[in-house]
């Protein structure tokens, strides 16, 4: 089957979920989430059955859409994160119900929950399209589809001030960055005469294009995509939006949105780095942004006492590592060397596993302990050892402790940087990783060293549903296996 059938199926799944929610008299809307998850699992299976397009297929459609291994890998990331987000949403439903419509006005006790299960599926379809987009138009359309869906999801808990504030901030800043993106695309089209990335690349390489104009277009695009992935100095929205949004959506933003932003950034930067005239300055720009992001992301995470906010700052730090991989892209790829794109893809695959594992636990603690502060995690090692162990492994992997997937991600980034001789970036990355040891282990210390305080002291163990338990165990196993055998993920990238 052709690759685009996957998006069609996912999108139709979303529509079906909406219709079922509107027309069927469901006792328990969790069945919508289950339906969504099952559908996505089927799509994930179909991902492996995709037939690459015939070499002589000259249909114009393939200028807008790519079905390379890399695209399929990023589609897989999108689908997996959506499945896990839906699983998290099932656990989080109590808070969604509480913070949407007021109790007297509800037609159904779970009113407002159906859409919360359907929207991630639409976002997934958009992310999958972004993974395959090779034309400025399709990049923009899919990017907007994803972003607008996220505006809605972030502000979903409309009776909760934090969620509303997060939504408004995301909307305003997102709209601003979209403006920059469109302006950049307009410039790019203006100087190269085409919207197709391949043709743009050829035009930039040929040297007919004025380098100043190309750099101007690049800087505008860098601003917009830097916003999307959380690069400094465009990262100001991340802490507030991540903290205010519902936890499953924060996880989705952190993984899915970042991955999609990076695949677009990879495609666009490949175009610019292919041109001799501007490649040097483009690499320099990436290096500066990467260095700043590493410093700011890691150092600002240190004083945080709200765990969700800490994870937000840490996601900025991870964007810094990913940008380092981009900045250190080798000019000429030798045999046996991993390309910058492969390293970024691997890092994002590992990042998916460990971030979603962490957020699974964060969501459960939020629902049952009613707090996102690190204080709420005190004594979790005694009261809920399973969750504490899961969070320990997630934090170890995020910090980059060897024999976990996260270490390999950092290792490959270090290797790329050292091969390219970018010793400043290596130093900053090492400082950042060192700072990471502190702030990731802060919650581990709270869980295992301290005894619970306040209300939590008398609380029972946090109940974990079978689905969540299965998800947690699977993620732990995958993190450890990928820590030994990176081939597991690298093989998928091709």
């Amino acid at each position, binding site marked *: 089957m052709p690759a685009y059938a996957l998006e069609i199926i996912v999108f139709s799944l979303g529509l079906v979920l909406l219709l079922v929610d509107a027309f069927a008299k469901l006792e328990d809307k969790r069945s919508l989430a289950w339906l969504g998850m099952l559908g996505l699992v089927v799509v994930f299976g179909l991902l492996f059955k995709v037939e690459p397009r015939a070499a002589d297929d000259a249909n114009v459609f393939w200028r807008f859409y790519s079905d390379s291994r890399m695209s399929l890998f990023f589609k897989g990331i999108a689908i997996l994160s959506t499945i896990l987000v839906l699983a998290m949403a099932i656990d989080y439903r109590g808070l969604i119900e509480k913070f949407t419509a007021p109790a007297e006005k509800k037609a159904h006790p779970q009113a407002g929950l159906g859409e919360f299960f359907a929207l991630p599926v639409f976002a997934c379809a958009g992310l999958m399209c972004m993974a395959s987009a090779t034309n400025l138009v399709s990049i923009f359309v899919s990017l907007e589809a994803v972003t607008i869906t996220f505006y809605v999801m972030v502000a979903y808990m409309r009776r909760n001030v934090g969620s509303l504030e997060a939504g408004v901030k995301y909307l305003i800043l997102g709209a601003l960055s979209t403006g920059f993106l469109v302006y950049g695309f307009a410039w790019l089209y203006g100087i190269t005469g085409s919207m197709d990335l391949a043709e743009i690349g050829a035009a930039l390489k040929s040297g007919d294009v004025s380098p100043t104009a190309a750099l101007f277009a690049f800087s505008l695009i860098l601003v917009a995509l830097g916003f999307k992935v959380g690069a400094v100095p465009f990262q100001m929205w991340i802490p507030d939006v991540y903290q205010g949004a519902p936890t499953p959506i924060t996880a989705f933003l952190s993984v899915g949105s970042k991955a999609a932003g990076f695949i677009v950034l990879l495609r666009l930067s490949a175009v610019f780095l292919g041109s001799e005239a501007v490649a040097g300055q483009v690499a320099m720009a990436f290096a500066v942004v990467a260095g700043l992001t590493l410093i700011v992301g890691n150092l600002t995470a240190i004083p945080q006492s709200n765990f969700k906010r800490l994870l937000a700052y840490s996601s900025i730090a991870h964007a810094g590592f990913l940008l380092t991989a981009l900045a250190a892209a080798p000019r000429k790829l030798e*045999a*046996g*060397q*991993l390309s910058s794109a492969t390293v970024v893809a691997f890092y994002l695959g590992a990042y998916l596993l460990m971030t979603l594992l962490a957020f699974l636990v964060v969501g459960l603690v939020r629902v049952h302990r009613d707090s996102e502060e690190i204080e709420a995690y005190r004594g979790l*090692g*005694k009261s809920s*050892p399973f969750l504490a162990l899961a969070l*320990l492994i997630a934090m*170890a992997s995020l*910090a980059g*402790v*060897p*024999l976990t997937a996260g*270490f390999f991600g950092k*290792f490959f980034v*270090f*290797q790329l940087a*050292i*091969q390219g001789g970018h010793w400043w970036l*290596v130093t900053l990355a*090492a400082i950042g*990783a*060192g700072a990471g*040891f*502190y702030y990731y*282990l802060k919650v*581990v*210390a709270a869980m*295992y*060293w301290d005894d619970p305080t306040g209300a939590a002291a008398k609380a029972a163990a946090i109940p974990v549903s079978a689905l969540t338990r299965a998800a947690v165990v699977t993620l732990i196993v995958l993190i450890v296996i990928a*820590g*030994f*055998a*990176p*081939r597991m993920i*690298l093989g998928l990238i091709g």
Partner: protein
Amino acid sequence: MTLVEFIVFAPLLAVLAILFGSPARATAIVAAVANLAAAGLMTLRFPVEVESKGQVIFASSRNLLASPNLNLAFGLDGISLVLVILTVLVTLAAVWASPAEGRIKGNVKLYYSSSLLIASGALGAFCATDLFFFYAFHELALIPTFLMIGIFGSGENRKRTAWTITIFLGVGSLILLAGLIALLVETGGKSFAFADLYAVGDKIPADAQKNIYLILLIGFGILVSLFPFHSWAPPAYAQAPTPVAMLHAGVLKKFGLYGLIRVAMPLLPEGAAHWQTLLLVLLLGNILILGLVTIAQRRLDTLLGYSSVMHMGYVFLGIASGNTIGLHGAVLLMFAHGISIALLFALAGAVRERMGTLDMDELGGGLAKKAPALGLLFGFAAFASIGLPGFANFAAEVMVFFGSFQPILETKKLGALQWAGILSLWGVVISAVYMLRAYRKIFKGPLTDKDAKAGIADLTLTERAPALLLIVALMAVGFVPGLLLKYLTPTLEAIAMSLKG
């Protein structure tokens, strides 16, 4: 599954078993004994295997990644064998010396699993023949140490100490990682296997060698508490629970020294020669400055902590000399020091349990009258640590000193290395001073504070056994050093040759 893979992964399987409910102490002891048996088997078969298979025996390699070539590869040669024997002995003693399950207030599973994880990490690091896993396995010990010191440590400062050791070791490993990756890049970046690296080794340009060697020296130095990167170690060892202190000071610290011998020196000989003077100055800092600081300690645990840091100076001296006899001494000293310091920490733990404090002024004196076995064993341990002939430490230190003087035969004058050797000899005096003073203050002399010490029981059989095990090992190697030295010779001679040339 080869014997080596078994020995590395057995503790991890034991941890999984404990996680799923098997009794913690029993499982841990079974795993440690199984490892000891496997190590014994390997030692017996060593000469036979070397005949048939060459230097690295029980080799195994499972490919995990094609490019760059990454394999889960283990193998044993002389140096690794000696360090593996050290690790299994100390692990068994550490697990044995841990308090019984009823007496641990808190998560028993965590207590025993941590020791096993640290042991597995050390074994994996010593047996790995792949640069990546050599580094990765060592890091396995980081989080268990963090948790153990924070939860079960002694002293009010334990949480801060846990942070200090974790951040220091974390940063140290990152610096080490940068150095190792730089080394990898210089050798072509295609393969992590030691064999492949050695093949390319001497082609690294001299400038790159100097830079990379410095980074590795700092990285390994932080891990081994080389002066001035030592400040994390003494409080950490003082406040850690007994098994963690035994494993860290006894085994884990040797990783950095092993790394220098295994990785840094054969591949970066010119770098090693260039920075030798710096290393000599720093190791003298360890021996003399930290030795004097040790004398000033008022508590037994911090004294042992500083003492273990001080003795690393001798091993560095052996490594710095770069000749056969010095290197033999260095490796033998790694073994001897590991066993003796583990023994000292085990006995100190026993004292702390009985008396509640390790402050030498508060302890009073005459403890040997109430607990004669404890006193006797501590005496043995103290003398071993000083370097009394008959214990392995003496044989090792003698070889280190001879190694530092050996170049005189050619150069006919006193160079930096020789001066370092001369000054290090004073370290023996210093260690005699503090060790004997501690022994006398705590154990000997008239029995003070009779009422407080009325209920003190002597070492039980369970507590004596691990101590005896370690002492027997020390004395056996002390009287017949050839027992271990014969395994070391082929590898160390090859390294010494490559350094000369």
